């Protein structure tokens, strides 16, 4: 169950089926992202694809073609794409067309296409199921930034999610048993739609091993904490502070950044240093970066000793690698440098400490309240961090009698925090307050947990900044032990036989990189289990709060009326 390999295998098949020759790859906006997640341009060039073109670009219909090129078409099966293809086939720019749809396409559309192929240029028409973004081997995203409106599915988003998930299952040859989070209607809706497709397309899902896979559908609203926290592992941290978008990080906002570094690619497939350090924490990365630098400097020094012909020749021959290494070093040094600048500038360690305490320690209302207040009064703390701290407080102490949320709101108002952050505080409670959750996020101090904490306390190495474990960790551990409660996570339809060891976890409302690490460590610790994580998108706190804002727009306030000092206009 490796989504990156699954997509790569399809691309290899696509490029090899069209026989040797110079090729152009014609894509739409979304399929461009699908491909760019797994292949860099130089890799795709090695597959004889020398040109890339967008079918949805404004000047595509009028651009000139090259008759001696073969055109690989890889597009989503949408109406616009079919229409654009029909126009293209009527006046073909290229010599031959190999058409691949990223998902199931209606027969009627094939017929329309065939009727337009008057020049007989089409050689292949196939469905290749890669309608999702493969982020890491065990992590995929559907790139839907906002999936709910008025707290239920936004219909196009539901449609896209169903298609995306179906393509994930197909590309991995899985016909799953479905379980969903009981209190969430959006999870049930999604599960039902997936089930319908599986039974409608039963011939497609007729794999030799059926029901050996579980699809577990969860709702982001059950754990609103994880996406709000500051992160300290490399990938998660970069996403939280700099934002990763389709493996690309924009650094253009940094002062004096050279042009070639204004956007850097962080791809596990192409960058060994990144793959090694993706789950390392901030301190470890610092050490590794230093090692990398030292190594590079030693290398550079050895290059400076050019005294003989042999030295010269060594230099020239190893130059491409040297250049590559130097590019990589510069990239990571810049990124880590920027992270560390932000950590210092905004006192993120202090912020994170309070965040971690509120999210994962025993009830200590007074202490937590003081911690938040102290940071609100600190000038170095960012408005967004202050607001997130208040949100964490609001979520944790929502039903606490001496809740001083109103006082905190007064305090941050005095800081003249932008209005959107105040709205966020209300919205997040409407979105994922205790009424919307089925799991005990904060008070689950059962015997097991207490013992665990005790043991951890003994070993005394727990990092203050990484105490928090996402709710998903507990859910998956229960699942691995076969203890996931059926009343909380019921089956939809067929429940299969035996225990499923391949698990696709899908979070409606977006997954996070912290959860990706959780899944990775579950996989490591349970070699018999193979968990794949997916989400409508991959959130950081900013994108998460935007989604919350979208989802709760026009929803009347039900649970937050008591916060009288925040009024919507």
């Amino acid at each position, binding site marked *: 169950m490796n989504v990156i390999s699954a997509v790569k295998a399809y691309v290899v098949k696509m490029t090899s089926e069209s026989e040797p020759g110079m090729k152009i790859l014609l894509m739409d906006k979304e399929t461009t992202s699908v491909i760019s997640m797994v292949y860099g341009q130089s890799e795709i*060039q090695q597959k004889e694809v*020398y040109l890339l073109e967008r079918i949805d670009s404004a000047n595509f219909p009028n651009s000139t073609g090259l008759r001696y090129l073969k055109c690989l078409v890889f597009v989503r099966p949408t109406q616009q794409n079919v229409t654009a293809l029909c126009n293209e086939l009527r006046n073909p720019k290229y010599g031959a067309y190999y058409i691949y749809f990223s998902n199931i396409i209606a027969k009627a559309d094939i017929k329309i296409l065939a*009727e337009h192929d*008057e*020049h007989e240029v089409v050689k292949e028409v196939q469905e290749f*199921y890669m309608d999702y973004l493969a982020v890491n081997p065990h992590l995929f995203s559907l790139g839907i930034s906002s999936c709910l409106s008025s707290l239920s599915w936004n219909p196009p988003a539901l449609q896209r999610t169903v298609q995306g998930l179906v393509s994930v299952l197909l590309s991995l040859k899985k016909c799953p048993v479905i379980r969903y989070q009981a209190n969430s209607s959006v999870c049930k809706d999604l599960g039902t739609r997936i089930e319908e497709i599986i039974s409608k397309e039963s011939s497609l899902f007729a794999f030799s091993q059926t029901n050996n896979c579980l699809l577990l559908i969860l709702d982001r609203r059950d754990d609103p904490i994880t996406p709000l926290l500051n992160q300290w592992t490399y990938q998660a941290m970069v996403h939280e502070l700099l934002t990763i978008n389709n493996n690309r990080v924009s650094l253009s906002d940094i002062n004096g950044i050279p042009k070639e570094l204004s956007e850097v690619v962080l791809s596990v497939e192409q960058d060994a240093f990144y793959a090694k350090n993706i789950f390392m924490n901030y301190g470890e990365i610092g050490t590794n970066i230093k090692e990398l630098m030292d190594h590079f400097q030693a290398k550079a020094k050895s290059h400076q000793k050019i*005294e003989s012909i042999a030295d010269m*020749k060594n230099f*020239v021959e190893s130059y491409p690698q040297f*250049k590559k290494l130097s590019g990589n070093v510069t990239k990571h040094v810049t990124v880590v440098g920027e992270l560390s600048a932000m950590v210092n500038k905004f006192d993120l360690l202090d912020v994170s400490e309070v965040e971690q305490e509120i999210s994962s320690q025993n009830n200590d209302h007074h202490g937590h309240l003081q911690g938040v207040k102290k940071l609100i009064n600190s000038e170095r703390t960012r408005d967004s961090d202050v607001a997130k701290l208040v949100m964490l407080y609001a979520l944790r102490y929502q039903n606490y009698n001496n809740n001083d949320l109103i006082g905190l709101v007064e305090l941050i108002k005095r800081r003249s925090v932008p209005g959107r952050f105040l709205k966020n505080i209300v919205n997040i409670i409407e979105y994922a307050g205790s009424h919307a959750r089925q799991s005990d996020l904060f008070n689950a101090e059962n015997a097991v947990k207490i013992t665990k904490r005790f043991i951890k306390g003994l070993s005394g190495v727990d990092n203050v900044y990484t105490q928090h474990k996402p709710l998903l960790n507990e859910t998956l551990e229960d699942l691995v032990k076969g203890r996931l409660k059926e009343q909380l996570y019921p089956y939809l339809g067929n429940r299969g036989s035996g225990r499923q060891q391949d698990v696709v976890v899908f979070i409606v409302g977006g997954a996070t990189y912290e959860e990706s690490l959780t899944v990775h460590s579950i996989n490591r610790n349970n070699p018999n289990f193979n968990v794949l994580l997916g989400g409508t998108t991959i959130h950081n706190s900013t994108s998460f709060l935007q989604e919350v804002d979208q989802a709760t727009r026009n929803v009347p306030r039900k649970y937050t009326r008591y916060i009288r000092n925040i009024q919507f206009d």
Partner: protein
Amino acid sequence: MAEADSIQEGFLCPICHKDLRSANNLISHFQDLHSEEKDLLSSIKGIYGKVKKKILTVEDQDLEHFKNEISLQKEKYYLEYSEPQDPGPAVSHTEYFKSVRRDRLDHRTAETNKLIIRLDRLLRVFASDRKQQEQELVAWLDGSTVSRCPSCASSFNITRRQHHCRLCGSIMCNSCSYFLPYEIAQTIVTPLNSGSSKEQSGKESETLRICYHCLDMLESRRRVQIDQVLQPIICQLYTHLQKMKIQVQGSVDMYYKIYNSLKSGESTYILQDLQSLRNTIADKAQMIDTLSKKIDSLPVDPETPKSAVLQTGIRKATSSYIKEELITLPPPPTPEELEKTKRERLAKVKVDDIPVSSTSIKKVTVTTGWSPANVANESTVSEEADPLLEQMNIVRSYIKQAREAQRFDEVKSLHENLNMLKDMYKKQLGKEKH
């Protein structure tokens, strides 16, 4: 930089031959002016062509370092490289697509063929009573009831007169008419355009009035014909390039095979095999490089800006292929290393094969030569009497020939044969002893 000054002639840029005076200057100069797009290979060759062989065997431990460089030891959780896996299912609609298309196109093809037959006849019509003859071939539509042009809907009158398409007989106005020059019509009818065009030379400037519908059908037929015949120069160069790549890839695969075999102490191949192959690969790399440069520098038609992008793309892909696959081959092991691994392997073999008598092992491992006198001393078999030994000798000479011709696959299979013969010979010796 006093030291640097004293040996300044050593700091020549490998590409532009400029004296940079110090190592630092040279490196920054090289990085600034000769980015990786510049051709590294030819620069090496240009300067050091004469000592090529020597250069190619110089060890590059550096590269080994580069390969291991980011494999930092410390690890907790990290992502492994994704192993290739089988592609998921695919549903093909090609058959259905083609059947729909066939139904539709059969009609069109028939129509086009009909037009071409008519066109052929029309071309044979000569001047005098042309109009009448044309009407005999193609029935013209009766225009009396048609008051407007069917394609642009303008009404016909004294200034806008009715015209007929010479191919299908339909009616249109002058501005909706298209004129097919005779010489083009000729090429449509007889695609290969043999001497027949000269016969019709008298009609050079004449044209046929036809409608858009007929023009479209003829045009698409003509385009197919052109595409079949026309192969732009870039296609030829590219095909050649790909052919070379496949060839060199074969050599590279073989290089690794021999390399690994040598490294593991086998005696199937010898060190010279590896070196000669390395030279061959370097030569081919040079040729591939030249070819891709030629593609890159092809003139670009301003109407098709894409071809410029395409040409650069090919050049880039080729140069990174050369960089990543061809010039980073591991250097051949030194003779000392080779001896060492051979000895280690031999020691291992001896330990493994205790039951076999040691004398026979000694004899078998002698691969460099064999003298009849030797064998005669050790065994009772006389030289002419043993066809096996004779056979072995023949095989050895084949191996030598194959090696000279760089046919390494054959070297390997011949070696297998030789080993089989040796085994048989061993058994035979054993039997005779008893």
